[in-house]
């Protein structure tokens, strides 16, 4: 320690500074406000899972699933096996939900696999696809797949 520093230190020894809590709290609050603002920026997201169709090689017998096709036209109208269900602006799709729940129950009772294929019109808004996936999640239907074009 230098002579100058030691002299200053001895001069300050008389006054007891103690632990300076004020600047410490100041810094902690700045950090707190920073993280609060960042946390508000982070939005909670959820997810809807699906599997794309693929090919599988098997030598055992294969049970053909009970397949249903859900179509979505350009206006957002949802069709189950070509029959329209609910309105194009109805995001809850109650009739489709009830029907799919019944189909799921039937599939469970018959011990078959219920497979749903979603086929959207290219111009249909994406949120209608999510509405349908939301209904499928409500009906506890896991086997969902899409028709996908070859080119991209």
């Amino acid at each position, binding site marked *: *320690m230098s002579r100058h520093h030691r002299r200053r230190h001895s001069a300050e020894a008389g006054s007891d500074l103690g632990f300076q809590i004020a600047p*410490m709290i100041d810094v902690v609050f700045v950090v707190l406000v920073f993280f609060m603002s*960042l946390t508000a920026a982070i*939005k909670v*997201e959820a997810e809807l899972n699906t599997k794309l169709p693929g090919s599988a090689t098997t030598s055992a017998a294969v049970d053909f699933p009970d397949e249903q096709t859900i179509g979505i036209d350009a206006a957002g109208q949802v069709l189950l096996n070509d029959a329209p269900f609910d309105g194009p602006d109805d995001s809850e799709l109650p009739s489709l939900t009830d029907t799919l729940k019944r189909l799921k129950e039937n599939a469970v009772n018959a011990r078959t696999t219920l497979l749903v294929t979603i086929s*959207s019109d290219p111009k249909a808004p994406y949120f*209608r696809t999510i509405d349908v996936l939301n209904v499928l*999640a409500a009906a506890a239907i896991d086997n969902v797949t899409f028709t996908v074009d070859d080119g991209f």
Partner: protein
Amino acid sequence: MAGGGSGDGEEPEFQIAPMIDVLLVLLIFFMSSITKQVARVDKSITLPVAHNASKRDNARDESIINVRWDQAKKHAAFVFEDKTYERLDPIVPVLAQLQSATKKHRLVIRGDRLVPAEQISLAMAAAASAGIADITFAASPR
């Protein structure tokens, strides 16, 4: 905590400067880590709402394709790893490499709610070409 005693019998003081130093280092650490987490998602996208969607599983190995939609210009763009693409051809080899590295790799599609379904279909086709069958759609729970 070690004090700043010089061994000459004086009372050790609490050193506030190194404490602030440590706090600032922590601040920078959290800034960088949280900024990285926030940067993975595209805030310009308004996700569609799905009340029955499950909680996001962040523990899985995943890639994210953001599908932006400009309603005024009726134009879609794909954002993958901070780069914007008009077509998905260049992304496929990257996705195929990620899929071969970890077999349980999945693709998260974050599409704007108004984007036409054909753009989402293109993203799924790219995933299929890369050998990824596990697709997840991001949605807002409310």
